[in-house]
């Protein structure tokens, strides 16, 4: 007859011989896991959690940067910011910059990704070259483009005049709307390879059979792009747009070094405003408040975006 199966109804934990003997090994395991992550948590608390909380705390004070002394002002910093035009102007600039450069990044990125997906001569060399702008130091990128945009000696003006598009050299960085446009363009040049790589990686996972089936069904190349490629790219694009939007929104180096926020504050974005308040105007408290507002805005956009993307 069958052996071993006793139809006792036993609830776990009532085994009288030893109370839940398995737990201690599992507990030791958990402890080791926590030990492994402890350095990370330590670093996090020190350089992320603490400064984050401090930033919120500092925003409630009025602080003079060189001496780092200040006094409590409560929400006065926030009130001042929201009332002043400069904050809203900077926000508008930030949005303009983000949307502009992100759009170009996506366009360039997808086009070049599609291009690199084909069989072309020296394809791996092409891929390496395309990545260069992304990994370049922003300092180098800015120096090079400022030299390129130089009104007298820059080749941008030279080539445009040579090909007849313009008669006189253009001041690319000192006047509006040129300055914002130049920024948007350089930002796109620097960051579009991120889109290229991500899209290319996804393109390479689309099975050939899908294209073959579409061809048999009568789809031409444009139709194949819209009906096969684009739907497959959708999930990747959602993530790319989110990441790049957040990173473009918080971009400091490129804009600060290209135009410094000028002319006047025409290209000043929120990150630049934070820096200016903190280190040029010596108002740490206001700077922190600006930073806090910036974070809230980012968070709000993220939540809205993720909710929309989920549907």
């Amino acid at each position, binding site marked *: 007859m069958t052996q071993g199966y006793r139809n006792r109804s036993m609830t776990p934990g009532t085994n009288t011989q030893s109370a839940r003997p398995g737990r201690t090994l599992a507990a030791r395991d958990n402890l080791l896991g926590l030990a492994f992550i402890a350095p990370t948590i330590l670093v996090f608390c020190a350089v992320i959690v603490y*400064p984050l909380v401090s930033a919120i705390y500092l925003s409630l004070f009025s602080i003079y940067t060189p001496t*780092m002394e200040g006094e409590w002002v409560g929400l006065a910093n926030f009130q001042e910011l929201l009332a002043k035009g400069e904050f809203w102007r900077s926000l508008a600039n930030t949005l303009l910059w983000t949307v502009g450069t992100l759009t170009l990044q996506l366009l360039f990125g997808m086009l070049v990704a599609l291009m690199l997906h084909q069989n072309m001569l020296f394809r791996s060399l092409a891929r390496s070259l395309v990545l260069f702008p992304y990994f370049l130091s922003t300092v180098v990128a800015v120096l090079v483009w400022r030299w390129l945009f130089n009104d007298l000696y820059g080749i941008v003006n030279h080539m445009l005049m040579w090909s007849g598009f313009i008669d006189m050299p253009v001041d690319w960085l000192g006047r509006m709307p040129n300055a914002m446009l130049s920024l948007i363009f350089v930002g796109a040049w620097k960051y579009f390879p991120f889109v290229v790589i991500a899209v290319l990686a996804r393109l390479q996972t689309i099975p050939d059979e899908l294209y073959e089936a579409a061809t048999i069904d009568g789809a031409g190349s444009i139709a194949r792009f819209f009906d096969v490629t684009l739907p497959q790219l959708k999930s990747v694009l959602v993530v790319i747009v989110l990441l790049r939007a957040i990173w473009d929104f918080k971009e*400091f180096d490129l804009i600060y070094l290209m135009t410094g926020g000028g002319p006047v504050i025409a290209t000043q974005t929120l990150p630049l405003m934070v820096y200016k308040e903190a280190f040029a105007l010596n108002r740490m408290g206001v700077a*922190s408040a600006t930073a806090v507002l910036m974070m809230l805005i980012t968070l709000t956009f993220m939540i809205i975006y993720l909710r929309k993307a989920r549907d």
Partner: protein
Amino acid sequence: MHYIPRWLRRGLFNLFAWTVILLIVLPLVWMITTSIKPQSELFLIPPAFFPEEVTFEHYRRLLTETPFLTYLRNSVILAGGTTVLVIVVATLGAHSLVRFSYPGRETIAGAVLFTYLLPSVVLVIPLYFLMAALGLVNSLFSLVIAYTSFALPFALWLLRSFMSAIPPDLEAAAMVDGASRFRAFIDVILPQAAPGIISTALFTAILAWNEYLFALVLINSDASRPLTTGVMNMLVTSFNIEWSLLMAASVMMSVPLLVVFVFLQKYLTRGFGAGAVKG
């Protein structure tokens, strides 16, 4: 519907594609040619594409007449120090997140993801305060610590995806074979994660090499400046903007990148594919 022979189509496509690519790298090419043009050729109107004469005068001046070498040394220390610290902490952390299950693990993973998106400009002010309070302002050490604020989440994200691709049975086999959990990590997981670790190390080093804002805020003395702020400082303090010197400096700052690209490119693209976007 006219018939374009295949070879012609491919030829035209290659022409188009390579034109696009050359346009993308044109600024960099211009950077290089400017750096080797003699001063006289620099300010020609209209500017010439190719130098008639090649000179390395600007490089010589850069290395002997400016603090460039000091900046270079600082950048090397900075990139190296940050990479070592971040890799050690992140490898242990990623292993913990991937292969253990303890209460709070998912929260920590979510927190990591969240910090990946934090603006540095928010953190830089309190970090400045912190470093000032600790008496660490103007030291490279303070920068290394500050850099972990953005390098660590990124490295964790990358390493997490690399290490989750290692078959779990390997660790189990090592434990059955007699290794403690920790030993199994050293003997089996680390060798398997090596390519991923190299990718992450490269990304981290590049991030540290290129960083500007924190260096701007936390370092004021020329002796401790890394290349990024040092070179920009050279631009600002000179009365005349010496474009030839700056282009030479730009080329030199990009040399490590070039080296990585030529020899280690597969590590970069692998890192991109693994961590950057999950489809």
